[in-house]
């Protein structure tokens, strides 16, 4: 029974918090504001990469192998044309990072969107319908939870590789990646939503909606969903960071994106090969970009979790 009241507080808290409390706690935390600023600037830079970047690193006509491995501008041998130097194929590193960040963010967002949609849907169905459907979905979740997400993503990648001809792989690498991330991260959403749905199901307004004769899918979407979505927001934020790390890791391991459409992870992987010859910038700048972006997102997620937690207020 205590859990029920806690849940009720949390959901109504969310609605009210968006009016003032959240904004207030946001303003009183300089680190959170800085993190939000970084996320905003980097997202915008990634979004407008084609207009900001000095060159398009994906356009073979603009890339010259002769320019390969040039150090950053302020070092000996630097070229004023290339702010952060170039990579092994003569691509301007600054432009490649902007485009890579764009790919990373894009994959992170779509992957998390898939995970969230799948997880929330299954959680709603499991919690609302209950019975065998519930135990089936939750058993699958339990089994999956025994494996780290990165392992699931690797397995899915391997299975898809086995099912497809090698020529088709490069074209759908992007799709495979987002689906693997989606399938690797859905469990947390499903468990959270199922828990809140079980609580909401017993409420009077749901009973009333049933008595009126509304079909179950409509009740789930229109009445249950808005009341269970609060905690999902927190998981969503933290998961975007995790998904970007997962993508970078998979690309680093060589099962993510092909080198022709590099993400930050691919760039780091390329740079890693030149670390020993002293060309440190190829790995350093994409690495810093990735770490800074994920750190900022995690700071935002931490703050959001505390701000939405009624116990801490």
């Amino acid at each position, binding site marked *: 029974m205590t859990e029920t009241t806690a849940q009720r507080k949390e959901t109504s808290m969310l609605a009210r918090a968006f009016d003032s409390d959240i904004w207030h706690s946001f303003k009183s935390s300089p680190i959170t504001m800085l993190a939000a600023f970084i996320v905003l600037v980097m997202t915008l830079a990634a979004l407008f990469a084609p207009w900001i970047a000095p060159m398009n690193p994906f356009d073979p006509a603009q890339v010259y192998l002769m320019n390969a491995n040039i150090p950053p501008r302020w070092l000996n041998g630097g070229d004023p044309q290339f702010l952060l130097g170039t990579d092994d194929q003569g691509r301007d590193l600054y432009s490649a990072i902007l485009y890579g960040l764009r790919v990373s963010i894009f994959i992170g967002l779509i992957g998390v969107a898939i995970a969230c949609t799948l997880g929330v849907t299954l959680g709603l169905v499991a919690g609302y319908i209950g019975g065998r459907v519930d135990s089936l979905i939750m*058993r699958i979740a*339990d*089994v999956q939870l*025994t*494996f*780290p997400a*990165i*392992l699931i993503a*690797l*397995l899915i*990648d*391997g*299975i898809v*590789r*086995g*099912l497809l001809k090698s020529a088709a792989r490069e074209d759908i690498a992007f799709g495979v990646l987002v689906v693997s991330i989606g399938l690797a991260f859905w469990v947390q959403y499903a468990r959270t939503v199922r828990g809140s749905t079980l609580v909401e199901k017993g409420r009077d307004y749901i009973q009333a909606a049933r008595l009126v004769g509304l079909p179950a899918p409509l009740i789930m979407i229109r009445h249950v969903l808005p009341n269970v979505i609060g905690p999902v927001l927190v998981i969503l934020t933290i998961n975007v*960071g995790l998904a970007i*790390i997962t993508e*970078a*890791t998979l690309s*680093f*391991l*060589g*099962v993510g994106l092909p080198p022709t459409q590099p993400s930050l*992870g691919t760039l*780091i992987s390329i740079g*890693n090969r030149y*670390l*020993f010859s*002293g060309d*440190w910038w190829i*790995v350093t700048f994409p*690495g810093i970009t*990735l*770490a800074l972006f*994920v*750190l900022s997102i*995690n*700071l935002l997620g*931490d703050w959001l979790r505390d701000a939405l937690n009624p116990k801490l207020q």
Partner: protein
Amino acid sequence: MLAFILRRLAQSVAVLLSVAIIAFAMFRFVGDPVNQIVSLDTPAEQVEQVRKDLGLDKPVYIQFVRYIGNALQGDFGQSYQFRQPVTKLLAERAPATLELALMSALFSLLVGIPMGVYTALYRDGFGARLFQAVSLIGVSLPTFLIGILLIYLFSVHLGWLPSFGRGQVVKITENWTTGLLTISGIKALILPAITLGLFQMTLIMRLVRAEMLEVMRTDYIKFARARGLKTRAINFGHALKNTLVPVITIAGLQLGSIIAFAIITETVFQWPGMGVLFLKAVQNVDIPIMAAYLMMIAALFVLINLFVDLLYAAVDPRLRATIRES
């Protein structure tokens, strides 16, 4: 109590069975196992013979039973890439991975627990805040990036430690090698172990901190203070002791994921372990290795989980009471 043990055992078997179904489905339906064994110019009747030898002409459920039967005897078939039994390949590489995993678990405990205690005791001090900030950065940095960073600093820049391989290893038994007995082996182990253990270390630090703060608020700590015990005796004799039970549990549960996460660390440091073997299998669609690795990790998780649960029930009288009621 017996009912509880039996129920937990049944659950474990169910989990393992469902993972086995996935592993079998991968083996049977992702690509044709026969095509991987025969060459392009093998005559048709020979292909049929191979199919019969593998038992692939039988109904699917009989194949599944056979697959499980073989797996229970440690036979996961032949690797497509290496043309060798999967079990042998995994066994050859197991010592490297286990050594790495144990060392990083040890590292995360030996560093994480003191850091957690420190941040809990002096939680507003400068050092505690620094540790907290560092732990957040540690969580945000992907494992491979930490590895690259350490390699750059300690191998390329300072030249103190090797950046790849296991160094010199000593053969203990027929298929067990260790790097712990040679200087170069220990040197080679340091960077990978830190890389792999760093994430667990931050996790343990945060956990110890939270548990310590919780315990310090309880009545028996206040009572110990009232009795006039020394602060040191209270902190370490009373508080830390009660903190360690959940910490050891989590550390035990994490051991499985350390082994799985070793895939990344092993790749960065070219460590000749099972993780690299699995990654190669994913890249080259070597399904038997993928399936066997999946089963192995699942079995490991289930065993550790089962062990922890039973240990808990044996140790904690409160838990025993709830089991009896239900």
